[in-house]
């Protein structure tokens, strides 16, 4: 009775030896990134939300402005006002929108990274992901690509669209008010600002912050629980020990430089903006290369951790 009746595979589902497709590395990387979007919708929802909130504020501001009509905007659209006033009124809202959206993107990137390799261990889904023929390296790289490439590029695109909408809105609201709308479009130097922003996104978010994100990923792969605490504690300990033992703060200043962005090459901001866009000084900085080396080490450790660590 114990002999199982096993010789009856269903006719439709019996396994012919079909020639397996090949899945290229790019393909499995693409799907690994894609699944991050499914899981973490904040990646695009947060910057979109920030853009929407900002646009709403901008519209309200414009309408109030139109009502008063003695506000700053129409004044600055006359060409002979003080450049500083002009900058404040014309460029500031646009810079602010960019700063807000990029800031939100930064926060999303940080929290994403902290949870990226911890969440899958906490909910045990790592056992599902590991049952797929996707290497730990691919998984870790795809998770690193989100804060390093995807979020900056995405928020850059959102900033561009937001600023374009702001220009349209401003033109509509101010139409017929007697203000010089053409000046609005020319003063803003849309293209130059975009280039500057794109450069900033590529260098600061993509390369300068690489060791920070790699550290967060490492912690999320290693932490037995509370990855946030594990991410913050070691730097605090190092800083404290250094301060107590040697009465120095090298580590702290190192950290500060890393967080504040690359030190500005001493070039006055009023100088030709285009010249700062050429990535000459940035790539000369030893801090950049040291940071990238540290990021590579963190990554290598993270891949190994992903290999060894099971569910929490």
């Amino acid at each position, binding site marked *: 009775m114990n*002999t*199982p009746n096993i*010789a009856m*595979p269903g006719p439709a589902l019996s396994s012919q030896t*079909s020639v397996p497709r090949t899945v290229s590395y790019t*393909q499995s990387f693409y799907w690994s990134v894609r699944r991050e979007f499914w899981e973490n919708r904040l990646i695009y929802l947060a910057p979109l939300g920030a853009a929407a909130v900002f646009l709403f504020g901008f519209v309200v501001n414009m309408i109030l402005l139109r009502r008063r009509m003695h506000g700053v905007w129409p004044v600055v659209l006359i060409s002979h006002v003080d450049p500083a006033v002009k900058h404040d009124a014309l460029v500031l809202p646009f810079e602010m929108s960019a700063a807000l959206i990029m800031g939100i993107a930064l926060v999303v990137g940080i929290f994403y990274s902290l949870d990226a390799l911890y969440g899958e261990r906490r909910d*045990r889904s790592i056992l*599902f992901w590991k049952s797929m023929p996707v*290497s730990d390296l691919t998984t870790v790289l795809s998770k690193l690509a989100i804060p390093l490439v995807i979020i900056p590029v995405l928020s850059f695109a959102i900033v561009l669209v937001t600023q374009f909408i702001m220009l349209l809105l401003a033109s509509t609201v101010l139409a017929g008010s007697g203000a010089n709308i053409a000046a609005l479009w020319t003063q803003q130097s849309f293209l130059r600002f975009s280039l500057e922003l794109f450069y900033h996104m590529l260098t600061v978010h993509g390369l300068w912050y690489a060791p920070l994100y790699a550290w967060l990923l490492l912690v999320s792969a290693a932490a037995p629980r509370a990855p946030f605490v594990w991410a913050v504690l070691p730097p605090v300990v190092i800083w404290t020990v250094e301060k107590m033992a040697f009465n120095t703060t090298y580590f702290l200043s190192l950290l500060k430089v890393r967080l504040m962005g690359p030190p500005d090459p001493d070039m006055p901001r009023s100088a030709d903006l285009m010249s700062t866009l050429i990535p000459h000084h940035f790539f000369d900085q030893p801090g950049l290369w040291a940071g990238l080396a540290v990021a590579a080490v963190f990554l290598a450790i993270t891949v190994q951790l992903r290999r060894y660590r099971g569910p929490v």
Partner: protein
Amino acid sequence: MACIEARGLRKSFGKTIALDGINLRVEDGRILGIIGPNGAGKTTALNAILGLTPFQGELRVLGRDPWAERDQLMRDVCFIADVAVLPRWIRVSQALDYVAGVHPRFDRAKAEAFLARTTIRRDSKVKHLSKGMVAQLHLALVMAIDAKLLVLDEPTLGLDLLYRKQFYDSLLNDYFDRNRTIIVTTHQVEELQHVLTDLMFMDRGRIVLDCSMEEIESRYVELAVNPGQAASARALKPIYEREALGRSVMLFDRVDRQQLAALGEAHTPSIADLFVAVVGNHAAEAQGATV
């Protein structure tokens, strides 16, 4: 080449020995059931086979070292490590997309055909499915993968009887053929009885029984002893004895069935009874050794 070959497979966590030098050989086209109490080392053994944990000793799965060559191995090996490891946020359609995207041997049509027989909707999220439906979904994904080895670790834990039965029926009827090998661990022994071709009992990191189901039929006899013949039955050295409904029930290993039939009702033991006898004895021996 056997599907799985292990020699002296060891694994310890600190002072706890999870696998105590296991020798194991699983041929292609078998359905092996691994049964053991909690902490017997079943999951550790499976993890080693799946390249999820490093180990000591020798282990080849489909001719590969699972720890060193896990990425390649996973094209030919599939596993359900536990119930409910599908990510809760994923939609059914997304799960299909993803597996189709990354797995070279996934046949989407097969998975769709299997899902069509269930009430699972494509746009549902896993967290909104019942436990049984999640198991069905996972099985649909796994069965559509043309793998050589399928490993199931407690695949039906916490499911009701209907889903459990369906699970194993699908597995046998729609998936299994003699080119594939299946390894399954479970506590629900009874339902597996007619599914398995091979049976393995584990206890405290060791294999205490490893034989085919045919072998079990020919080797083991459970005897409900006639009243008054207990002493002569006992003389044949049963490996285990218990009382049931006022009669002695004894389990014999490699004792002539004809000879036993004269002393009472002889039949093949259930896996559960065999497990209690074999593993119970092993536990008693182990305890005797430590005292």
